[in-house]
């Protein structure tokens, strides 16, 4: 069995009896990651049950991944546990809460998974995080979200059990068994939608870098902070940039401070002349020919015109990636956001489309832990024929009523716990 179809489970070190393999009967798990020191009879019993027990997976941090290696899976071990960093408002003595809040920070892996898939050359991407310091401080939904997050981005997160749950299962504790069954149901549901992993990203922005060495931090943070503002992007390695990567794009953000590789220059030149926007620092801008000053003014960018397009040259080297992501979004314009969400402060949205372009799929991940997502609205300016919401807690998708206003259409999502994939069928598509 190829690791691309693996549903891996990190066998708890505290499980010393092969009898516990019964928990996996009739479930979706087909691969065991056995810790060192696992009794040999467990491996033998597992293999007897046709469970894969691969040799040690080569886990490494994102920074240390050997992208050119031939390991069967790119396995990254410095992901995070998906979570919400709460910044609550203070209540006044009379109970009246005043003042709108900003968006909270989310610990999310989406940008990292997009980057890893970009660089993995088609190999499966697995992600995990160091065990949480206080595993029981997370709600169980965090562990469900971890699985859904990886799947939404076309990757895998080996199932890891918090110690209390592992202990409870070993003792056949009813509450633990209930959680386990829920976890297996979610895995089975995700498996039934695994074809979504091959849907290409729906983005009007390409973020180009070598994502390594001196450029690694800046480019990674730009991806991270773009994802947080739900600015959809396609990460592209600069040495591999192809014309197809720029099809349908409105902007290219060249994140590195050094010159563009020669292979990239004619592609970007053509892209800009045809109406695209290039954002970059000073050194790479020198490669773009036939520019002229623009009448537009910007506090942080010198704006140039080129053919039908524009070049935005940063006046200083980028050192605040939040501002870079913000400026990119605004210079490109929110007009080109395919999807807008409301009441989604703790939600990230990863947007993909079917190969024929006829359907869009918005993967909504709720990082609010115990709190379900309520009264979320999704708006698009694209004409849509139908909309469906897929949620792990519902065996069947829910048809959504389309609320049409001049120039825009909305769907109101049902409450969901950690994950909701909204499929939009477009009325017209190429």
């Amino acid at each position, binding site marked *: 069995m190829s690791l691309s179809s693996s549903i891996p489970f990190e066998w708890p070190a505290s499980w010393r009896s092969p009898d516990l393999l019964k928990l996996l009967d009739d479930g979706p798990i087909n691969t065991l990651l056995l810790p060192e020191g696992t009794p040999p009879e467990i491996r033998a019993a597992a293999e007897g049950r046709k469970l894969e027990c691969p040799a040690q997976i080569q886990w490494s941090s994102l920074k240390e991944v050997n992208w050119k290696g031939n390991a069967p899976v790119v396995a990254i071990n410095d992901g995070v546990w998906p979570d919400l960093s709460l910044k609550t*408002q203070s*209540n*006044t003595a*009379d*109970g*009246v*809460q*005043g*003042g*709108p*809040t*900003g*968006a909270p920070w989310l610990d999310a892996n989406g940008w990292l998974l997009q980057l890893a898939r970009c660089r993995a050359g088609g190999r499966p991407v697995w992600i995990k995080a160091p065990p949480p310091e206080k595993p029981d401080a997370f709600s169980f939904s965090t562990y469900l979200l971890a699985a859904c997050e990886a799947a939404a981005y076309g990757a895998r997160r080996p199932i890891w059990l918090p110690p209390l749950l592992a202990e409870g299962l070993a003792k056949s504790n009813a509450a633990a068994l209930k959680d386990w069954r829920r976890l297996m149901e979610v895995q089975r549901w995700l498996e039934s939608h695994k074809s979504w992993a091959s849907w290409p990203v729906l983005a009007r922005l390409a973020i180009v870098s070598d994502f390594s060495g001196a450029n690694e931090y800046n480019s990674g943070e730009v991806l991270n902070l773009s994802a947080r503002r739900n600015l959809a992007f396609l990460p592209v390695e600069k040495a591999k940039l192809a014309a197809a990567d720029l099809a349908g794009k409105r902007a290219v953000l060249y994140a590195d401070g050094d010159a563009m590789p020669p292979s990239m220059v004619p592609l970007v030149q053509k892209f800009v002349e045809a109406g695209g926007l290039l954002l970059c620092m000073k050194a790479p801008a020198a490669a773009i020919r036939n520019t002229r000053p623009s009448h537009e003014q910007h*506090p942080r960018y010198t704006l140039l015109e080129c053919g039908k397009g524009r070049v935005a040259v940063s006046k200083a080297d980028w050192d605040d990636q939040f501002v870079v992501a913000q400026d990119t979004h*605004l210079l490109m*314009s*929110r*007009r080109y*956001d395919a999807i*807008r*969400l*409301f*009441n*989604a*402060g703790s939600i990230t949205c990863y947007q993909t489309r079917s190969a024929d372009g006829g359907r869009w799929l918005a993967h909504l991940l709720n990082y609010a832990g115990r709190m379900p997502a309520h*009264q979320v*609205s999704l*708006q698009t300016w694209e004409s849509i024929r139908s909309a469906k919401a897929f949620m792990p807690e519902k065996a069947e998708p829910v048809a959504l009523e389309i609320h049409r206003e001049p*120039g*825009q259409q*909305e769907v*109101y999502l049902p409450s969901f716990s950690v994950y909701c994939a909204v499929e939009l069928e477009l009325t017209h598509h190429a």
Partner: protein
Amino acid sequence: MHRHMAPGISRRHFFAAASATALPLFAAAPAPAAPVSIAHCPDYGAALAPTLKTMFDQLGGLGRLVAGKTVGIKINLTGSPRQRLGNTPAELAQYTHPAVVGSVVRLMGQAGARRIRILEGCFACDDPMEEFLLEVGWDPSPLLNAATSVDMENTNTLGKGRKYARFKTPNGGHIFPSIMMNHSYEEVDVLVSLAKLKEHATCGVTLSMKNMFGATPLTIYGDHAAKDDADEATARGGRGTIMHAGARQPAAIAEPERDPKSPRADKYRMPRIVADIAAARPIHLAIIDGISTMTGGEGPWNGGRLRAVNPGILIAGTNAVCTDAVGTAVMGFDPMADRGTPPFERCDSSLKLAEMHGVGTRDLSRIEVVGVPIKDAVFKFRV
């Protein structure tokens, strides 16, 4: 009929006169009164523009106010563009509806306004207003094309200007002796406050005067404002620290509070700051969108019982206090109410405080209501 600024008086003369009159604290003469128009309007459809035009005609006609003038329209976009009351779009609850903005702009253009600038301190950011509107899900193009020479400015920063404008508060102000604002508020000849009919957590009601609170630049009065000069990179966060809580003074480009030892409670401070702003930078036309709105607070972030409602009401007047007094009455409250009585159970009345500044009267017996009588327009916000 009394008017705060007679049409035909130039902006320069008006401000000079306002500064020169520095009344003793506080005005002994009765505050001026001006007519207020009320109209039913069921929705934001075809009836909206004709209804507004009738209302403006009842007030003496727009041409008299705006012909040949530069007009600033301060709209209300309070709170995050991505936060809704349930699934209710912001324009049907907490934001001024774009159809009202567009209709007002169009009518101003038809009445001969030379230039129209749509203004707002867009929530917690220095984004161009056009981009902010896109985030709400609105297309700014119809607003920009509703008349000739329309533009927009996010007034949280200097924006397109070179320096901030200072407006002296008559009588030395309740809190601030002067208020700094984006240059647009000085450049426009006519200032329109295009507000929403709502309650407010710290001011009881938020109508045309409270709407102007959002005109204070974040770079000077925001949570991240620099201590010294205004820093254009600090336009983020809210106005809780300096304005609501008085935990520190504004950036030193602005005058500090007249009495830093005054109470720090937001329900004491905010109504006074609202009155100071209304007196420092007078509103020439107050328009209140009460067609669709919300009860229970000024935005979805307020706790308690919040409801999206459809009073189907528009209110307009040339005196902000008079207009807000009528608005308060239409909401089912007594505009003469003081602290302890709804809607001012927990706060002071900005209507009373602005009246003390001599901006206008809140006494309904002195305000001529044209169009729909108040009794036929009442939509009780507390049921």
